[in-house]
């Protein structure tokens, strides 16, 4: 009997069910879309913020003092200490290896041209496959400096090079430097002092300068957690448990600490200009998304419970009839709650699907060309139970006052009144 009532109610009152269902459907769609966007916004904005370049820089510990003004080395260091390029794959083995999204080593060298002049050059990775065990990534200077503008192509062979746009060289030129011929394959505009330099493959620079395996600086881009008071603690003063917690959080400081551990003789530091402000911007934008999601949740909750309340109020006559036919209050409440619950779960699940699709579409449209959407799946399984439970709770809570007052009214009054 109960199930028949339930079934008939859905079958016969399609319009009412459709209206209440529509309210829940839209509410859950909006909330799912907002939550799905809010949970991925961190990653997406981090990808956008990558245009600011590295947030961690690794240098050799016992280095001489740089004498640099405006990016130009006034007294280029002779000798000095270097990191080993062969140590770099170790970066892919640290605790937060998966958070490292870019690695770009540099080796500035000074080359003698055939006409006796000197030219500054920098050895770089262009599209280097950094692999360690199972994990590998293609990385290098172009990926870490998205604001560099290239005409032509990046060098791919050891005897090729790219030239800065202010170097006076052209694509196709051949430069004889330190006795080797280098063919210019591309012109790069960097907007800084590198515009006057040659950009060589790292291995070529090492060979020309006779510094095998040497690297003087490594830029690292890592996905980090914005710094808080705990992040600023000196790890060596913490208790072992606290140290463990500190170590296992993706703070820029902990990642730098792990890099220092992994690479012998390295000094790793956060680039505060990038790291501090990125965290700030990231926090603001994702905070905004979360607060708006909360507002959406609140508004959708109000709208859905108002819709449910109206839907029940409409059906007072039914309640009166059932009561006068002898149904207990409990049985009627159960019937109405089951109807509401079923509707909420069903439309909530559909709303989840719509919302996820909508979020993916919106995300792909707004953040087009980042490849950000491809990284995260369209459906976030964690959201499904949350959304369905929310829809259920809001619908039940919204209909409770109406069911309550309807049950408390005298059935005869309800039936007589023009309900």
């Amino acid at each position, binding site marked *: 009997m109960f199930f028949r009532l339930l079934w008939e109610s859905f079958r016969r009152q399609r319009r009412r069910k459709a209206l209440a269902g529509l309210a829940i459907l839209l509410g859950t769609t909006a909330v799912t879309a907002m939550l799905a966007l809010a949970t991925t916004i961190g990653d997406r904005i981090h990808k956008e913020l990558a245009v600011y370049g590295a947030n961690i820089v690794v240098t050799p510990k016992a280095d001489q003092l740089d004498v640099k003004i405006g990016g130009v080395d006034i007294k280029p260091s002779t000798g000095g200490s270097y990191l080993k390029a062969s140590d770099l794959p170790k970066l892919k083995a640290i605790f937060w290896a998966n958070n490292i999204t870019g690695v770009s080593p540099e080796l500035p060298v000074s080359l003698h041209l055939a006409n006796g002049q000197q030219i500054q050059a920098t050895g770089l990775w262009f599209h280097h496959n950094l692999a360690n065990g199972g994990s590998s990534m293609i990385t290098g200077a172009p990926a870490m400096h998205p604001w560099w503008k290239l005409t032509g192509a990046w060098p791919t062979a050891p005897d090729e090079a790219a030239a800065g746009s202010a170097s006076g060289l052209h694509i196709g030129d051949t430069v004889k430097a330190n006795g080797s011929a280098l063919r210019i394959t591309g012109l790069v505009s960097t907007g800084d002092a590198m515009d006057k330099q040659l950009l060589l493959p790292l291995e070529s620079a090492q060979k020309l300068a006779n510094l095998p395996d040497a690297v003087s600086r490594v830029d690292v881009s890592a996905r980090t957690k914005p710094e808080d008071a705990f992040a600023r603690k000196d790890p060596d003063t913490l208790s072992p448990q606290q140290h463990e917690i500190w170590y296992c959080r993706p703070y820029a400081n902990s990642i730098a600490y792990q890099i220092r551990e992994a690479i012998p003789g390295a000094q790793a530091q956060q680039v505060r200009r990038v790291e501090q402000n990125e965290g700030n911007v990231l926090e603001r934008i994702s905070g905004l998304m979360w607060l*708006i999601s909360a507002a959406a949740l609140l*508004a959708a909750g109000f709208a859905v419970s108002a819709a449910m309340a109206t839907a029940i*109020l409409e059906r007072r006559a039914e309640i009166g009839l059932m009561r006068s036919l002898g149904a207990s209050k409990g049985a009627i409440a159960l019937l109405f709650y089951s109807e509401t619950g079923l509707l909420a779960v069903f439309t909530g699940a559909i709303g989840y699907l719509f919302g996820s699709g909508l979020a993916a579409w919106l995300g792909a449209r707004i953040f087009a060309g980042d490849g950000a959407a491809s990284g995260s799946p369209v459906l976030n399984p964690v959201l499904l139970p949350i959304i369905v439970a929310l829809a259920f709770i809001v619908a039940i809570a919204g209909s409770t006052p109406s069911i309550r007052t309807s049950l408390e009214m005298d059935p005869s009054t309800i039936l007589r009144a023009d309900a």
Partner: protein
Amino acid sequence: MSDRNSHQPQLSFAGILRRSLTHRRARSFSALVALTVSAAVATALLTLYADLNAKLHKEFRSFGANVVITAPTSSALPPHTLAQIQQAAGPDALIAPFAYAVATTDRGTPVVVAGTDFPAVQRLDSWWQLPHWPTAADAALLGDRAADFIADEHAVKLTYADKSIALTGAGRLKTGGDEDSRIYIPLAAFTRWTGIGPTVVELQIPGGAVAVQAALTRLRAQFPTLQIQPVRQLVEGESRIVDRTHALMYGAVLLIALTVAVSVLATLSASVLERRRDFALMKALGGSQSQLMAMFLLEALVLALAGVVFGYIAGSAAAWAISQINFHTATLPRLSVLPLVLLLNIFIAAFAAFFPVRVLRGLQPAALLKGE
């Protein structure tokens, strides 16, 4: 309409309206809540949206200088250039002069010493990590790496072209950039010591790529001999991120507005449909179609207006709270969003009243009153 109306000679339009709103309070109340929510959401989102760009650009100011002005090689900036640059760049621009020289430390290591205006740098480069900003006229802020090449960090002795200077160490500076290998001292002391004036001016122009481009054009026209370069990654990055956040917010506003509108529509039309008996009765008593429509419409409009009043207050409060929590600055209520909110709410209410009335039109009063 009960027999209590009998002592009233005539049913006025306003009387029906008043009774209809007060007679079944629960229903009127739920409609009012729905319309208040829709107005509040619209107000909050539109207020935030209108303020978003300004707020985001403000966040990006903390990234520091986005334009660098350099004097041509081996010459200082002409005097009064600083004031002229400030004038050309606008009063909102942050501006800090720098002068550089290579001196030797007490250990004989060459080091870059920079003379600058500390209060200006403090505004420009908020990410510098240091114990406290120096105020003394002979303070020396030691870069974290440079400090390792100095024997006495409290009484710093530097030599430039055989002229030495004694400075008071003001602590270590940590940035993770080139600054770590330098020593910063006040510009006046620097110029007295080395005779070198500022050669580099760092500039922070607020407002994103368009504003920076406009300022660049102005500056280049006014100072043709100086080298004026934007810090490309900052200018491009800021615009990209602001644009995308803006688009995201736009999507969210549309989505939420639509949801709330449709939910409110569902609630309101259900409550109108519920009253088909009233409708049938009025029709049976001789009410014309247009009279009845006007009746329903007016009721909905009264509710919509009340909803806008409460919703505008609640929504402005919500926008204020959100920006206070998130951006730590207040967003004041904007009257300019009111017409749009009003329009939206009236549209929803009118649609919610019209839609069921059209459904009801075809019904026969007699059949309805019989209870079918």
